[in-house]
C-alpha cells in the first residue's frame, strides 16, 4: 500500500524538521534543512488541496463571467475579447489580461469600476485559498 503523495511529503517535512535538522551542526546547512522542511510542508498542502481548490476556482470564475457578460456589453473589442478568452480557461490567472484591458480602456469609468468590483471578490477568494498553503 502506498501513501498518497501529499502525506509522503508531509512525513518527509516532519522528519527533516524534527530529526535531521537539529542534528546538523553547520549553521548554513541547518538553515537549508529547515527551509527544505518548510517547502515540503507547503508542497504537501498544495498537493492535498489542489483538486478542491480547482473545483471552487472554476465555479467562482464561471459565475463571475455570467455577471461580467451582463455588464460588459457596449465595450471595445479588446475588452470583449479579453473577457471571452478568460472565460474559456475558467482560471483566475486569465483575468489578468482582462483587468489590464479594463484599466487601459477607462480607469475611473463607472463601468470599469463596476467590472472590477465584481472581479475583486473572486481574486480575494483565490488569494485566501493560496494563503491556506502559504501560512
Amino acid at each position, binding site marked *: 500500500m502506498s501513501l498518497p503523495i501529499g502525506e509522503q511529503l508531509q512525513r518527509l517535512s516532519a522528519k527533516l524538521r524534527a530529526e535531521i535538522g537539529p542534528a546538523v551542526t553547520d549553521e548554513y546547512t541547518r538553515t537549508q534543512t529547515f527551509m527544505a522542511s518548510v517547502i515540503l510542508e507547503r508542497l504537501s498542502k498544495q498537493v492535498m488541496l489542489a483538486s478542491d481548490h480547482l473545483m471552487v476556482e472554476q465555479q467562482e470564475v464561471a459565475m463571475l463571467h455570467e455577471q461580467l457578460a451582463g455588464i460588459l456589453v457596449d465595450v471595445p473589442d479588446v475588452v470583449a475579447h479579453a473577457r471571452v478568452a478568460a472565460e474559456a480557461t475558467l482560471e483566475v490567472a486569465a483575468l489578468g489580461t482582462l483587468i*489590464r484591458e479594463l484599466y487601459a480602456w477607462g480607469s475611473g469609468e463607472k463601468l470599469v469600476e463596476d467590472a472590477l468590483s465584481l472581479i475583486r471578490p473572486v481574486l*480575494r477568494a483565490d488569494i485566501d485559498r493560496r494563503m491556506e498553503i502559504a501560512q
Partner: protein
Amino acid sequence: MSAASEIEAMMANYLRERLEIDGTVTIEDVTRIAVGWSHETWLFDAVWSSAEGEQRRGMCLRRDPGNALLRQTSDLGEQFRVLRCLESTDVPAPKAFWYEADPAVLGAPALVMEKVNGECPSPWRKTGREYYSAAAERGVLPLSFIDALAAIHNVNWRDAGLDFLGVPDTGDSFARSEITKWRGLIDESGHSGHPILDDLTGWLEAHAPSTDRLTLVHGAYRTGNVLISHDQVSAVLDWELQVIGDPMYDVAYMLTELNREGTDLLSNVVPRDLFYKRYQSMTGIEIDDESCRYYQLLYAMRSAAFWMSAAGLYADGSNSDLRLARTEWSVTVALDRAAQELGY
C-alpha cells in the same frame, strides 16, 4: 582553505598593493555577515606597521556574486559612487575606499569600504525589538533616527554629484519610473504573476501623484538598515535602492506597518507624533499623507517584485539557496497585502 582564510590572504595582498606598504599586512577578525540576500559582505581589521607605529583599520568588503537578489537594481559600482558623493554631506555613511569592477582582482566585482562602529539589531527578532523599545524609552535614538533621514532629504544632490542617479521630471514621472522599474523586475523574474498585481499596477498608474520637490531618497530607510552606536545612528547602510525622487517615498516607508511589529512606534523606535514634528521641522517638508498612502501601495508592488525575483532565481537554477525557493509563498503573502491595500 576556508572561505575566511581565502579572504585573509586575498585582502592582505590587495591592501599591501593598494596602500603601498612594503611590509606585511595582517588581516584579523574576519567575519561574514550572514544576513542579507544581495551582496556577500565580510568585515575585518587590516593591521600593518608604519613609521608612526602599528596601524589598524576596520574594513568591509562587499562582493557581487552575480546571482544575488536585486542584482539588476543594485550595482556595487553605483553604491561606491553614492558613498563617495555622501562624504561631503551630513549623512552618516561609511567611507568608500575602492571599487574593483574586474572580478579577477577580488574574485568578483567588489567594494571595499570603512567598517563603522555600531550594532544593527534585527527588528524582526525579539531581542531586536526589545533593544529598540528600550532605546525609544531613553529617547535619544528616535531623534537621531529622524535626523539621519532628514539629512538624506536635505542633501543638495546636484552639488554632491548625485544627479548621475537619474533625475525624473517633476509631475508624476517619479512614481511612474518606479512602477516601470518594478514591473521590469517582475517581467524578468519569469514568474507567472497574478491578476491582483495587474489590478495593483493599473491602480498605481491611474493614481500616480505629482511632486515638484525632488530629494535623495534612500529607498529602504528603517531599523535594521542603520548602524547604531551609543543611541546614535553611526551609519546609514544598504545603499541599494537609492534614487532621486519624492521624499514621501521614504516617509511612507517610515510610516508603514510593515516595518514594525507589535508596537505603534515607527520602525519600532520612533513615536509617530515626534516623527511628524521633528521631520517637518528639520527638512521644511510637509508630510503628505495622501502621497504616503499611494507609496505604501507602491511598496506592495515592490514587495511582490522582490519575492518574484527571488523565487525566479531559484526556479531558473541560478541560485540554489532554499531560502529563495521558499519565497514562492512570500509572493502570495505580498499579493494578500496588496489586495488589502486596495481594499479587498
